[in-house]
Protein backbone atom coordinates (compact mmCIF):
# COMPACT_ATOMS: atom_id res chain seq x y z
CA UNK A 1 0.00 0.00 0.00
CA UNK A 2 0.98 3.59 -0.57
CA UNK A 3 2.84 5.73 1.95
CA UNK A 4 1.06 8.73 3.36
CA UNK A 5 2.75 12.11 3.70
CA UNK A 6 1.92 15.44 5.24
CA UNK A 7 2.41 18.07 2.53
CA UNK A 8 0.96 21.15 4.17
CA UNK A 9 0.15 22.35 7.67
CA UNK A 10 -1.57 25.40 9.10
CA UNK A 11 -2.79 26.57 12.46
CA UNK A 12 -4.37 29.68 13.92
CA UNK A 13 -3.08 31.27 17.07
CA UNK A 14 -4.73 29.52 19.99
CA UNK A 15 -6.54 31.62 22.57
CA UNK A 16 -9.69 33.66 22.92
CA UNK A 17 -10.96 34.57 19.46
CA UNK A 18 -14.01 36.56 20.44
CA UNK A 19 -14.60 38.00 16.99
CA UNK A 20 -14.10 34.78 15.03
CA UNK A 21 -16.54 31.94 14.41
CA UNK A 22 -15.53 28.29 14.17
CA UNK A 23 -15.73 28.52 10.38
CA UNK A 24 -13.59 31.69 10.36
CA UNK A 25 -10.91 29.87 12.36
CA UNK A 26 -11.09 26.81 10.10
CA UNK A 27 -10.74 28.97 7.00
CA UNK A 28 -7.67 30.66 8.48
CA UNK A 29 -5.98 27.34 9.29
CA UNK A 30 -6.79 25.81 5.89
CA UNK A 31 -5.58 28.94 4.09
CA UNK A 32 -2.23 28.57 5.85
CA UNK A 33 -2.04 24.86 5.01
CA UNK A 34 -2.82 25.51 1.34
CA UNK A 35 -0.13 28.19 1.25
CA UNK A 36 2.32 25.89 3.04
CA UNK A 37 1.90 23.34 0.23
CA UNK A 38 2.27 24.23 -3.46
CA UNK A 39 0.38 23.45 -6.66
CA UNK A 40 -2.78 22.76 -4.73
CA UNK A 41 -6.12 24.51 -4.39
CA UNK A 42 -9.10 23.53 -2.30
CA UNK A 43 -10.69 21.98 -5.41
CA UNK A 44 -7.79 19.56 -5.83
CA UNK A 45 -8.41 17.88 -2.47
CA UNK A 46 -10.41 14.65 -2.57
CA UNK A 47 -11.07 13.79 1.07
CA UNK A 48 -12.21 15.84 4.05
CA UNK A 49 -12.15 14.86 7.70
CA UNK A 50 -13.40 17.26 10.34
CA UNK A 51 -12.39 16.75 13.96
CA UNK A 52 -14.46 18.73 16.38
CA UNK A 53 -15.37 17.58 19.82
CA UNK A 54 -18.57 19.25 20.81
CA UNK A 55 -19.81 21.93 18.41
CA UNK A 56 -23.32 20.75 19.36
CA UNK A 57 -23.03 22.17 22.87
CA UNK A 58 -20.28 24.74 22.37
CA UNK A 59 -21.69 26.30 19.22
CA UNK A 60 -25.20 24.90 19.01
CA UNK A 61 -24.29 23.54 15.59
CA UNK A 62 -24.55 19.95 14.37
CA UNK A 63 -23.75 18.26 11.03
CA UNK A 64 -20.44 20.06 11.33
CA UNK A 65 -18.72 18.29 8.44
CA UNK A 66 -21.33 19.72 6.06
CA UNK A 67 -21.46 23.09 7.84
CA UNK A 68 -17.68 23.42 7.52
CA UNK A 69 -17.61 22.06 3.94
CA UNK A 70 -19.65 25.07 2.79
CA UNK A 71 -17.40 27.61 4.50
CA UNK A 72 -14.23 25.82 3.39
CA UNK A 73 -15.49 25.39 -0.18
CA UNK A 74 -14.56 21.73 -0.20
CA UNK A 75 -16.32 18.99 -2.14
CA UNK A 76 -15.15 15.53 -1.07
CA UNK A 77 -15.50 11.94 -2.18
CA UNK A 78 -14.64 10.78 1.32
CA UNK A 79 -15.93 12.87 4.21
CA UNK A 80 -16.53 12.33 7.89
CA UNK A 81 -16.70 14.19 11.14
CA UNK A 82 -14.68 12.15 13.60
CA UNK A 83 -15.09 12.62 17.32
CA UNK A 84 -13.56 10.93 20.34
CA UNK A 85 -13.54 13.70 22.93
CA UNK A 86 -10.00 15.08 23.35
CA UNK A 87 -8.48 12.53 20.92
CA UNK A 88 -10.78 13.70 18.12
CA UNK A 89 -7.87 15.31 16.27
CA UNK A 90 -5.69 12.22 15.98
CA UNK A 91 -8.70 9.94 15.40
CA UNK A 92 -9.47 12.25 12.50
CA UNK A 93 -5.86 12.21 11.31
CA UNK A 94 -5.84 8.44 11.39
CA UNK A 95 -9.14 8.25 9.55
CA UNK A 96 -7.83 10.57 6.83
CA UNK A 97 -4.66 8.48 6.74
CA UNK A 98 -6.75 5.33 6.17
CA UNK A 99 -8.64 7.03 3.34
CA UNK A 100 -5.35 7.81 1.57
CA UNK A 101 -3.60 4.58 2.53
CA UNK A 102 -6.45 2.46 1.15
CA UNK A 103 -6.29 4.28 -2.17
CA UNK A 104 -9.78 5.76 -1.72
CA UNK A 105 -8.44 9.29 -2.15
CA UNK A 106 -5.11 10.76 -3.29
CA UNK A 107 -5.28 13.76 -0.99
CA UNK A 108 -7.16 14.47 2.20
CA UNK A 109 -7.68 17.62 4.22
CA UNK A 110 -7.96 17.04 7.96
CA UNK A 111 -9.21 20.01 9.94
CA UNK A 112 -9.46 20.19 13.71
CA UNK A 113 -11.41 23.03 15.25
CA UNK A 114 -13.01 24.03 18.51
CA UNK A 115 -14.74 27.28 19.27
CA UNK A 116 -15.34 27.52 23.02
CA UNK A 117 -15.69 31.21 23.85
CA UNK A 118 -18.97 31.58 22.01
CA UNK A 119 -20.79 30.38 25.12
CA UNK A 120 -21.64 33.22 27.46
CA UNK A 121 -19.63 32.14 30.53
CA UNK A 122 -16.76 30.01 31.72
CA UNK A 123 -19.25 27.93 33.66
CA UNK A 124 -21.12 27.11 30.49
CA UNK A 125 -17.89 26.08 28.78
CA UNK A 126 -16.95 23.83 31.69
CA UNK A 127 -20.42 22.30 31.64
CA UNK A 128 -19.94 21.59 27.95
CA UNK A 129 -16.62 19.85 28.64
CA UNK A 130 -18.26 17.71 31.35
CA UNK A 131 -20.34 16.06 28.61
CA UNK A 132 -17.36 13.81 27.87
CA UNK A 133 -17.83 12.16 31.28
CA UNK A 134 -20.35 9.35 31.83
CA UNK A 135 -23.53 11.21 32.67
CA UNK A 136 -25.32 8.83 35.02
CA UNK A 137 -22.43 7.21 36.86
CA UNK A 138 -19.96 10.05 37.21
CA UNK A 139 -20.89 13.52 35.92
CA UNK A 140 -24.10 13.38 37.95
CA UNK A 141 -21.95 13.64 41.09
CA UNK A 142 -19.98 16.64 39.91
CA UNK A 143 -17.06 14.98 38.16
CA UNK A 144 -15.11 17.16 35.77
CA UNK A 145 -11.92 16.89 33.75
CA UNK A 146 -9.45 17.90 36.50
CA UNK A 147 -11.07 15.36 38.83
CA UNK A 148 -10.21 12.28 36.80
CA UNK A 149 -6.60 13.30 36.29
CA UNK A 150 -6.28 14.25 39.97
CA UNK A 151 -7.28 10.67 40.80
CA UNK A 152 -4.34 9.44 38.72
CA UNK A 153 -2.06 12.00 40.38
CA UNK A 154 -3.03 11.00 43.90
CA UNK A 155 -2.43 7.33 43.33
CA UNK A 156 0.80 7.86 41.39
CA UNK A 157 2.11 10.10 44.16
CA UNK A 158 1.19 7.66 46.89
CA UNK A 159 2.44 4.54 45.12
CA UNK A 160 5.63 5.97 43.54
CA UNK A 161 6.42 9.03 45.64
CA UNK A 162 5.94 11.43 42.75
CA UNK A 163 5.87 15.03 44.05
CA UNK A 164 3.92 18.18 43.26
CA UNK A 165 7.25 19.88 42.49
CA UNK A 166 8.04 17.26 39.85
CA UNK A 167 4.66 17.83 38.24
CA UNK A 168 5.22 21.59 38.34
CA UNK A 169 8.46 21.12 36.42
CA UNK A 170 6.44 19.91 33.45
CA UNK A 171 4.32 23.04 33.42
CA UNK A 172 7.37 25.29 33.67
CA UNK A 173 9.16 23.49 30.82
CA UNK A 174 6.15 23.69 28.53
CA UNK A 175 5.56 27.37 29.28
CA UNK A 176 9.17 28.04 28.44
CA UNK A 177 8.66 26.44 25.03
CA UNK A 178 5.41 28.36 24.59
CA UNK A 179 7.24 31.62 25.26
CA UNK A 180 8.97 30.99 21.92
CA UNK A 181 5.78 30.03 20.09
CA UNK A 182 3.83 33.11 18.98
CA UNK A 183 0.78 30.94 18.33
CA UNK A 184 0.61 29.68 21.92
CA UNK A 185 -2.25 30.77 24.15
CA UNK A 186 -0.12 31.44 27.26
CA UNK A 187 3.39 32.71 26.56
CA UNK A 188 4.64 34.32 29.78
CA UNK A 189 7.30 32.18 31.53
CA UNK A 190 6.45 30.78 34.97
CA UNK A 191 8.35 29.20 37.85
CA UNK A 192 7.83 26.08 39.93
CA UNK A 193 6.73 28.38 42.75
CA UNK A 194 4.10 29.97 40.52
CA UNK A 195 2.66 26.53 39.86
CA UNK A 196 2.76 25.44 43.50
CA UNK A 197 1.19 28.69 44.64
CA UNK A 198 -1.57 28.73 42.06
CA UNK A 199 -5.01 28.08 43.45
CA UNK A 200 -6.17 24.50 43.95
CA UNK A 201 -8.53 23.27 41.25
CA UNK A 202 -8.77 19.65 42.27
CA UNK A 203 -6.21 18.48 44.81
CA UNK A 204 -3.49 17.60 44.13
CA UNK A 205 -3.81 19.64 40.89
CA UNK A 206 -3.56 23.42 40.89
CA UNK A 207 -4.53 25.94 38.25
CA UNK A 208 -1.10 25.88 36.58
CA UNK A 209 -1.23 22.08 36.41
CA UNK A 210 -4.21 22.51 34.06
CA UNK A 211 -4.44 23.58 30.42
CA UNK A 212 -6.49 26.66 29.57
CA UNK A 213 -9.67 26.77 27.49
CA UNK A 214 -8.77 27.86 23.97
CA UNK A 215 -10.35 28.59 20.63
CA UNK A 216 -8.42 27.52 17.57
CA UNK A 217 -8.16 25.51 14.39
CA UNK A 218 -5.41 23.46 12.76
CA UNK A 219 -5.22 21.76 9.40
CA UNK A 220 -3.02 19.24 7.62
CA UNK A 221 -3.08 18.15 4.00
CA UNK A 222 -2.27 14.46 3.49
CA UNK A 223 -1.17 13.03 0.15
CA UNK A 224 -0.13 9.68 -1.28
CA UNK A 225 3.58 9.22 -0.80
CA UNK A 226 4.29 8.90 -4.51
CA UNK A 227 2.81 12.31 -5.34
CA UNK A 228 3.85 14.13 -2.17
CA UNK A 229 6.74 15.95 -3.84
CA UNK A 230 4.34 17.56 -6.28
CA UNK A 231 3.10 19.54 -3.32
CA UNK A 232 6.19 20.18 -1.20
CA UNK A 233 9.95 19.72 -1.16
CA UNK A 234 9.77 18.56 2.44
CA UNK A 235 7.13 15.87 2.84
CA UNK A 236 6.88 14.39 6.30
CA UNK A 237 5.77 10.76 6.24
CA UNK A 238 3.48 9.04 8.69
CA UNK A 239 5.39 5.86 9.55
CA UNK A 240 2.95 4.33 11.97
CA UNK A 241 -0.26 5.04 13.85
CA UNK A 242 -1.29 3.05 16.88
CA UNK A 243 -4.53 3.45 18.70
CA UNK A 244 -6.27 1.74 21.57
CA UNK A 245 -9.65 2.17 23.21
CA UNK A 246 -10.37 0.16 26.35
CA UNK A 247 -13.87 -0.83 27.52
CA UNK A 248 -13.54 1.51 30.51
CA UNK A 249 -15.02 4.96 30.77
CA UNK A 250 -16.34 5.68 34.27
CA UNK A 251 -13.37 6.57 36.51
CA UNK A 252 -14.20 3.64 38.82
CA UNK A 253 -14.08 1.23 35.88
CA UNK A 254 -10.43 1.93 35.09
CA UNK A 255 -8.23 -1.04 35.85
CA UNK A 256 -5.16 0.95 36.92
CA UNK A 257 -4.99 4.60 38.03
CA UNK A 258 -1.19 4.71 38.02
CA UNK A 259 -0.78 4.27 34.27
CA UNK A 260 -2.35 4.83 30.87
CA UNK A 261 -2.83 1.18 29.97
CA UNK A 262 -4.34 1.94 26.56
CA UNK A 263 -1.32 4.07 25.72
CA UNK A 264 1.11 1.22 26.31
CA UNK A 265 -0.76 -0.72 23.63
CA UNK A 266 -1.18 2.21 21.23
CA UNK A 267 2.49 3.19 21.40
CA UNK A 268 3.75 -0.38 20.97
CA UNK A 269 1.58 -0.71 17.87
CA UNK A 270 2.86 2.59 16.47
CA UNK A 271 6.50 1.60 17.14
CA UNK A 272 5.89 -1.79 15.50
CA UNK A 273 4.44 -0.22 12.36
CA UNK A 274 7.30 2.27 12.15
CA UNK A 275 9.94 -0.32 12.99
CA UNK A 276 11.37 1.73 15.85
CA UNK A 277 11.57 1.72 19.64
CA UNK A 278 10.95 4.49 22.15
CA UNK A 279 14.68 5.22 22.20
CA UNK A 280 14.56 6.31 18.58
CA UNK A 281 12.14 9.18 19.19
CA UNK A 282 13.81 12.60 19.04
CA UNK A 283 10.85 14.87 19.61
CA UNK A 284 7.36 14.22 20.94
CA UNK A 285 4.19 16.24 21.28
CA UNK A 286 2.14 14.64 24.04
CA UNK A 287 -1.26 15.27 25.54
CA UNK A 288 -0.45 17.29 28.67
CA UNK A 289 -3.98 18.44 29.45
CA UNK A 290 -2.73 18.23 33.06
CA UNK A 291 0.85 17.91 34.24
CA UNK A 292 0.20 14.39 35.56
CA UNK A 293 -0.87 13.33 32.05
CA UNK A 294 2.53 14.13 30.53
CA UNK A 295 4.21 12.16 33.31
CA UNK A 296 2.00 9.12 32.73
CA UNK A 297 2.63 9.40 29.00
CA UNK A 298 6.40 9.37 29.10
CA UNK A 299 6.13 6.26 31.29
CA UNK A 300 3.53 4.48 29.15
CA UNK A 301 5.38 5.17 25.91
CA UNK A 302 8.59 3.81 27.39
CA UNK A 303 10.69 6.99 27.52
CA UNK A 304 11.34 6.00 31.15
CA UNK A 305 10.31 3.19 33.48
CA UNK A 306 6.95 3.10 35.20
CA UNK A 307 7.09 5.16 38.39
CA UNK A 308 10.26 6.96 37.27
CA UNK A 309 8.54 9.79 35.44
CA UNK A 310 8.94 12.31 38.25
CA UNK A 311 12.68 11.87 38.47
CA UNK A 312 12.99 11.80 34.68
CA UNK A 313 11.40 15.20 34.19
CA UNK A 314 13.26 16.63 37.18
CA UNK A 315 16.53 15.64 35.47
CA UNK A 316 15.52 17.58 32.37
CA UNK A 317 15.32 14.45 30.21
CA UNK A 318 12.21 15.79 28.48
CA UNK A 319 13.68 19.21 27.82
CA UNK A 320 15.91 20.27 24.92
CA UNK A 321 19.15 18.32 25.21
CA UNK A 322 17.49 15.58 27.27
CA UNK A 323 16.66 12.06 26.17
CA UNK A 324 13.58 13.18 24.25
CA UNK A 325 12.22 16.70 23.86
CA UNK A 326 8.59 16.73 24.88
CA UNK A 327 6.04 19.38 23.95
CA UNK A 328 8.32 21.82 22.22
CA UNK A 329 5.24 23.66 20.98
CA UNK A 330 4.24 24.47 24.55
CA UNK A 331 1.89 21.57 25.04
CA UNK A 332 -1.79 21.77 25.86
CA UNK A 333 -0.70 23.39 29.14
CA UNK A 334 0.52 26.54 27.41
CA UNK A 335 -0.15 26.31 23.70
CA UNK A 336 -3.79 25.66 24.58
CA UNK A 337 -6.27 22.88 23.85
CA UNK A 338 -9.02 23.70 21.36
CA UNK A 339 -10.19 20.13 21.75
CA UNK A 340 -10.68 18.82 18.21
CA UNK A 341 -7.69 20.80 16.93
CA UNK A 342 -5.07 19.51 19.35
CA UNK A 343 -4.08 16.29 17.57
CA UNK A 344 -3.80 18.15 14.26
CA UNK A 345 -1.70 20.91 15.81
CA UNK A 346 0.62 18.27 17.25
CA UNK A 347 1.15 16.92 13.73
CA UNK A 348 1.94 20.42 12.48
CA UNK A 349 4.50 21.00 15.24
CA UNK A 350 6.24 17.71 14.55
CA UNK A 351 6.24 18.55 10.83
CA UNK A 352 7.94 21.86 11.61
CA UNK A 353 10.52 20.05 13.79
CA UNK A 354 11.32 17.43 11.15
CA UNK A 355 11.69 20.15 8.52
CA UNK A 356 14.12 21.87 10.89
CA UNK A 357 11.97 24.98 10.82
CA UNK A 358 11.28 25.47 14.53
CA UNK A 359 12.89 28.58 16.08
CA UNK A 360 15.98 28.46 18.24
CA UNK A 361 15.10 27.34 21.75
CA UNK A 362 12.47 24.98 20.40
CA UNK A 363 14.16 23.19 17.48
CA UNK A 364 15.56 19.77 18.34
CA UNK A 365 18.90 19.54 16.51
CA UNK A 366 18.89 16.87 13.85
CA UNK A 367 15.42 15.61 14.76
CA UNK A 368 14.70 12.59 12.58
CA UNK A 369 11.89 10.72 14.32
CA UNK A 370 8.91 12.57 15.71
CA UNK A 371 5.94 11.34 17.68
CA UNK A 372 2.58 12.76 18.62
CA UNK A 373 0.27 11.36 21.26
CA UNK A 374 -3.29 12.37 21.92
CA UNK A 375 -5.85 10.97 24.36
CA UNK A 376 -9.55 10.96 25.11
CA UNK A 377 -11.57 10.10 28.20
CA UNK A 378 -9.52 9.24 31.26
CA UNK A 379 -6.63 8.21 29.04
CA UNK A 380 -8.81 5.29 28.00
CA UNK A 381 -8.75 6.22 24.32
CA UNK A 382 -5.25 6.75 23.00
CA UNK A 383 -3.54 7.41 19.69
CA UNK A 384 0.15 7.66 18.79
CA UNK A 385 1.62 8.75 15.46
CA UNK A 386 5.23 8.31 14.31
CA UNK A 387 6.67 10.62 11.67
CA UNK A 388 9.92 11.00 9.74
CA UNK A 389 11.24 12.81 6.68
Amino acid at each position, binding site marked *: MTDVAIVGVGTTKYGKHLDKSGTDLAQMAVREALNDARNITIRDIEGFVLSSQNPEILQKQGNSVNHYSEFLGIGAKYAARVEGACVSGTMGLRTGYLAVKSGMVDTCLVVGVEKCYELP*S*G*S*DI*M*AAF*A*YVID*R*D*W*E*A*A*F*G*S*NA*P*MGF*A*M*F*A*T*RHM*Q*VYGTTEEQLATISVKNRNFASKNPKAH*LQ*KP*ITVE*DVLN*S*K*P*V*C*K*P*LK*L*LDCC*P*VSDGASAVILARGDIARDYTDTPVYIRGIGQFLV*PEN*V*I*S*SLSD*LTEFTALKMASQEAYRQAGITADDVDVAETHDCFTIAELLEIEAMGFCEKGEGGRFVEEGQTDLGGKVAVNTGGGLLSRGHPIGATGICQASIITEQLRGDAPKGRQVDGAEIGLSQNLGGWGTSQAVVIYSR
Partner: protein
Amino acid sequence: MEEEREIMEVPPRYPNFEQTAIKEFWDALENEKLITTRCESCGKIEFPPKIICTSCYSDDMEWVDLPLQGKLYSFAEMFAVPSGFNPPITVAVVELENGVRLFGHVINASYDELKVGDDIEITFEEMNWFDYKKHKYFVFKKK
Protein backbone atom coordinates in the same frame (compact mmCIF):
# COMPACT_ATOMS: atom_id res chain seq x y z
CA MET B 1 -0.55 36.46 36.94
CA GLU B 2 -2.79 34.06 35.03
CA GLU B 3 -6.05 35.28 33.67
CA GLU B 4 -8.91 34.33 35.93
CA ARG B 5 -10.64 31.15 34.79
CA GLU B 6 -14.12 30.51 36.08
CA ILE B 7 -14.93 26.89 36.76
CA MET B 8 -17.60 24.71 36.69
CA GLU B 9 -21.03 23.89 35.47
CA VAL B 10 -22.19 20.36 34.66
CA PRO B 11 -24.89 18.87 32.46
CA PRO B 12 -28.19 18.29 34.23
CA ARG B 13 -27.83 15.37 36.61
CA TYR B 14 -29.85 12.93 34.76
CA PRO B 15 -30.62 9.31 35.67
CA ASN B 16 -34.27 8.66 35.01
CA PHE B 17 -35.44 6.60 37.96
CA GLU B 18 -38.69 5.44 36.38
CA GLN B 19 -38.06 4.86 32.68
CA THR B 20 -35.09 2.54 32.94
CA ALA B 21 -34.29 -1.13 32.64
CA ILE B 22 -32.44 -0.93 35.98
CA LYS B 23 -35.23 0.52 38.09
CA GLU B 24 -34.43 -2.11 40.73
CA PHE B 25 -31.08 -0.43 41.31
CA TRP B 26 -32.58 3.00 42.01
CA ASP B 27 -35.41 1.56 44.08
CA ALA B 28 -32.90 -0.39 46.20
CA LEU B 29 -30.94 2.79 46.87
CA GLU B 30 -34.06 4.43 48.25
CA ASN B 31 -34.10 1.55 50.75
CA GLU B 32 -30.39 1.99 51.49
CA LYS B 33 -29.45 -1.17 49.69
CA LEU B 34 -26.66 -1.30 47.10
CA ILE B 35 -27.16 -3.89 44.39
CA THR B 36 -25.79 -4.64 40.95
CA THR B 37 -26.06 -7.26 38.24
CA ARG B 38 -24.38 -10.67 38.07
CA CYS B 39 -24.32 -12.70 34.86
CA GLU B 40 -25.84 -16.10 35.58
CA SER B 41 -23.99 -17.54 32.61
CA CYS B 42 -20.37 -16.57 33.37
CA GLY B 43 -20.63 -15.19 36.91
CA LYS B 44 -19.30 -11.70 36.11
CA ILE B 45 -20.44 -9.02 38.54
CA GLU B 46 -20.57 -5.62 36.88
CA PHE B 47 -20.94 -2.09 38.09
CA PRO B 48 -22.64 -0.06 36.70
CA PRO B 49 -25.40 -2.68 36.32
CA LYS B 50 -26.07 -3.99 32.80
CA ILE B 51 -28.97 -5.69 31.03
CA ILE B 52 -26.56 -7.85 29.01
CA CYS B 53 -23.21 -9.21 30.19
CA THR B 54 -20.31 -7.27 28.64
CA SER B 55 -18.20 -10.39 28.72
CA CYS B 56 -20.28 -13.34 27.43
CA TYR B 57 -23.31 -11.35 26.14
CA SER B 58 -25.82 -13.46 28.03
CA ASP B 59 -28.95 -11.56 29.02
CA ASP B 60 -29.52 -13.77 32.02
CA MET B 61 -28.70 -11.20 34.67
CA GLU B 62 -29.55 -11.40 38.36
CA TRP B 63 -29.49 -8.71 41.03
CA VAL B 64 -26.98 -9.25 43.84
CA ASP B 65 -26.04 -7.25 46.92
CA LEU B 66 -22.73 -5.42 46.95
CA PRO B 67 -20.62 -5.42 50.12
CA LEU B 68 -20.70 -2.15 52.08
CA GLN B 69 -17.02 -2.26 53.03
CA GLY B 70 -14.00 -1.41 50.95
CA LYS B 71 -10.66 0.33 50.69
CA LEU B 72 -9.70 3.69 49.27
CA TYR B 73 -8.23 3.17 45.80
CA SER B 74 -7.71 6.85 44.94
CA PHE B 75 -9.21 10.23 45.78
CA ALA B 76 -9.23 13.94 44.98
CA GLU B 77 -10.66 17.13 46.40
CA MET B 78 -12.60 19.36 44.06
CA PHE B 79 -12.52 23.11 44.65
CA ALA B 80 -14.26 24.01 41.44
CA VAL B 81 -17.58 22.22 41.35
CA PRO B 82 -20.73 22.36 39.28
CA SER B 83 -23.67 24.39 40.47
CA GLY B 84 -25.74 22.46 42.98
CA PHE B 85 -22.68 21.39 44.98
CA ASN B 86 -20.77 23.22 47.71
CA PRO B 87 -16.99 23.13 47.35
CA PRO B 88 -14.76 21.59 48.38
CA ILE B 89 -15.96 18.05 47.66
CA THR B 90 -13.81 15.06 48.40
CA VAL B 91 -14.38 12.29 45.86
CA ALA B 92 -12.95 8.81 45.69
CA VAL B 93 -12.75 5.50 43.93
CA VAL B 94 -13.32 2.73 46.45
CA GLU B 95 -12.59 -0.93 45.87
CA LEU B 96 -15.12 -3.19 47.56
CA GLU B 97 -14.20 -6.48 49.16
CA ASN B 98 -15.29 -8.36 46.04
CA GLY B 99 -13.13 -6.23 43.73
CA VAL B 100 -15.92 -4.07 42.34
CA ARG B 101 -15.01 -0.36 42.32
CA LEU B 102 -17.32 2.58 42.91
CA PHE B 103 -17.03 6.33 42.40
CA GLY B 104 -18.64 8.71 44.89
CA HIS B 105 -18.32 11.41 47.51
CA VAL B 106 -16.35 11.04 50.75
CA ILE B 107 -18.47 12.69 53.41
CA ASN B 108 -16.20 12.82 56.45
CA ALA B 109 -12.66 13.59 55.33
CA SER B 110 -10.71 16.13 53.30
CA TYR B 111 -7.78 15.39 50.99
CA ASP B 112 -5.06 15.69 53.59
CA GLU B 113 -6.82 13.30 55.96
CA LEU B 114 -6.85 10.42 53.47
CA LYS B 115 -4.44 7.92 52.06
CA VAL B 116 -4.66 5.09 49.55
CA GLY B 117 -5.75 1.90 51.31
CA ASP B 118 -7.84 3.56 54.02
CA ASP B 119 -10.82 1.48 55.20
CA ILE B 120 -14.11 2.79 53.87
CA GLU B 121 -17.70 2.15 54.79
CA ILE B 122 -20.54 2.66 52.29
CA THR B 123 -23.52 4.62 53.52
CA PHE B 124 -26.36 6.57 51.89
CA GLU B 125 -27.27 10.23 51.52
CA GLU B 126 -29.81 12.29 49.65
CA MET B 127 -28.63 14.18 46.58
CA ASN B 128 -30.29 16.60 44.17
CA TRP B 129 -31.19 15.13 40.79
CA PHE B 130 -32.35 16.33 37.41
CA ASP B 131 -35.98 15.89 38.40
CA TYR B 132 -35.46 18.57 41.05
CA LYS B 133 -36.11 16.05 43.79
CA LYS B 134 -33.75 14.51 46.28
CA HIS B 135 -32.80 10.85 45.80
CA LYS B 136 -30.58 8.61 47.88
CA TYR B 137 -27.19 7.59 46.54
CA PHE B 138 -24.27 5.78 48.11
CA VAL B 139 -21.45 7.78 49.72
CA PHE B 140 -18.14 6.90 51.37
CA LYS B 141 -17.20 7.26 55.02
CA LYS B 142 -13.64 6.88 56.27
CA LYS B 143 -13.62 4.50 59.24
